[in-house]
């Protein structure tokens, strides 16, 4: 175990998988000579050369399609999006090509692809750079969705995603890259997809979340503890495959749940989680499942407005109090 940043954890995962499998390559804007816009790919060009760590033109649709074609032909591409906010330009290739290819060809062309980059807001990047994009990738079958919140999860899940034989949308966060945490050095530290992680335990309420909102959930759990309220904090870690058992386990224990996410509420991930909980744990619910999300608006630039727009621990506490009828 060593204390590592989320950024370095991703860098280790990339390096180890590039070493492990010659068919793995990384392509995206500024990933090579510039070490990545957020330095996630630092040093990889020197170690692996320009065929395996590749600076692309600003052609999201094109290089995403290129990587889909390379996967059809047997390689294992990793596409870096500078943020998933730019991937709207490429989503046709993700959904219509990558996510459907294996089925359309009846199993002839597996798609061992990873699409990775930050999702959601950083600080004051305003409307076109701050959207949480999970919904766009989780809706369609054929694409897996992974949202690591800690350095260890970032490393273990990225390695699993690269080794997985299906397309994976691997969603990070600018505000997570500097986050420090313990990460096993072990070369074969892999976290299987589909296993949620109970990151805090309590008996009174379940706070379920994914991605960078985990840290807001943890703050809320601490505040709640001070009021004598015990909260389970369940980090889904992967949205597809989804660890439904873990969701039902905590809900059946606490009988109350709040879903916290960074993105918009209408058809945010929480909507699906609520739909599953009420269908599969109906009789265990003592209160409706409430949701805490971003304000239902494009992200504003002004710092004071952005702060108001983002979810925070107080809103989570308020929602918890509501489901506890306090």
């Amino acid at each position: 175990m060593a204390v590592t940043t989320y950024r370095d954890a991703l860098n280790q995962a990339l390096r180890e998988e590039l070493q492990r499998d010659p068919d793995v390559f990384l392509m995206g804007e500024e990933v090579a000579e510039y070490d990545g816009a957020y330095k996630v790919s630092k040093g990889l060009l020197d170690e692996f050369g320009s065929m395996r760590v590749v600076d692309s033109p600003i052609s999201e649709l094109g290089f995403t399609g290129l990587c889909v074609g390379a996967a059809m032909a047997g390689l294992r591409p990793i596409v870096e999006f500078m943020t998933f906010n730019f991937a709207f330009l490429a989503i046709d290739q993700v959904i219509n090509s990558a996510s459907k290819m294996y089925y359309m060809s009846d199993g002839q062309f597996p798609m061992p692809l990873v699409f990775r980059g930050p999702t959601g807001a950083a600080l004051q990047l305003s409307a076109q750079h701050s959207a949480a994009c999970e919904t766009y990738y989780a809706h369609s079958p054929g694409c897996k969705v992974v949202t690591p919140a800690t350095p260890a999860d970032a490393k273990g899940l990225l390695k699993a995603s690269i080794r997985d034989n299906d397309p994976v949308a691997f969603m990070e966060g600018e505000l997570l890259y500097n986050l420090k945490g313990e990460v096993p050095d072990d070369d074969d530290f892999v976290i299987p997809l589909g296993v949620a992680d109970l990151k805090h335990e309590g008996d009174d309420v379940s706070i379920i979340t994914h991605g960078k909102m985990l840290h807001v959930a943890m703050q809320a759990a601490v505040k709640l503890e001070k009021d004598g309220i015990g909260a389970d904090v369940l980090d889904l870690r992967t949205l597809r495959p989804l660890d439904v058992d873990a969701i039902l386990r905590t809900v059946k224990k606490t009988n109350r749940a709040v879903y916290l996410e960074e993105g918009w509420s209408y058809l945010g991930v929480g909507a699906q989680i609520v739909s599953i909980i009420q269908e599969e744990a109906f009789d265990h619910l003592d209160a409706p499942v409430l949701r805490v999300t971003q304000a239902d608006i494009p992200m504003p630039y002004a710092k004071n407005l952005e702060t108001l727009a983002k979810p925070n621990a107080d809103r989570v506490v308020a929602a918890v109090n509501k489901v506890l009828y306090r």
Partner: protein
Amino acid sequence: MAKTKTRAKAKVKTNVFEEAGVSPEAAVGLLGRMLLYRRFEEKAEEGYAIGKIGGFCHLHIGQEAAAEGSIGPLRPDDYVISAYRSHTQALAKGVSPSSVLAELYGRAGGASGGKGGSMHIFDAEARFMGGHGIVGGQVPLATGIAWKIKYREEDGVVVCFMGDAAVNQGGFHEALNMAAVWDLPAIYVVENNAYGMGTAFHRVSITEMVEKASPYGIPASSIDGQDVLATYAHFRDLVEEVRGGGGPRFVDVQTYRFRGHSMSDPVSGTYRPTEEVEEKKEHHDPIGILRDHLFAGEHLDQAGLEEMDAEARRLVADAEEFADNSPLPGPEALYANVWAEINPHGRLFFDGRGED
């Protein structure tokens, strides 16, 4: 396949075979392939009319030389990728007529197990990479296949077909630029039949097709795609250049669609007059043109032609029999091959029936 007029025209030059460097015997082979494609598409037409085939079905009738002339020079380990108008290209790349027809019929024995249909024919073994339904969507994929060839230091080539309307898709430009920047072994082929559905090319472009690759510095050429000899010769040379490391190429193959855009569209209408279509069928039928050359050079006679045609029909009849007898995909196929990897943990299907 009108005779008189065209035969007269052909008489003047009988050295077409030497010109193209294709022996008369080889040319007879090309004719046989094109006859097969024609009869195959007529069978598809029939199958659609009687409801054996559903969905969208885009025929290649009139464009047989474009497929045979460009794919003929390839090796089995070279790659071909195309759009939704690709039955003939699949056959040319070595996918069996049975497998293609069974796919059109939606049978388990089809190239894509009945899941793809006319627009999504795939055959990994034949290196026929589909069959793609989003206009222009296959073009970046082709660049990626070429990327793999370079990555693995192989000497293969990928031929990417698209229609004339596809060049107005942004993805086309992004894909060609990357192929040029990275010097990839790809040949981008526009099957320029002059219309995108009901839109004449010159209504959506003020320049000629051959200009479309110029910003990327990709060598471009135009060829009469109704003349299979010229097309074959041209691609034989291009494939050699590209295989030798010459980088990408762009080819405007000028051809013509004898049928409607798809089986649900009219052959002619406000967008193109019946006379135009008739004139093309009369004087620019790729089969008629080659036949006339062979007749003129006395390398083939009417009897020989009829025998070849009978053979083509026999092959299609065999395919039909196979397709008719191929079972429908079973209900277990419904959820099969959505995921290449069913993870041991977590749920992948959310409809409450997927994992039943």
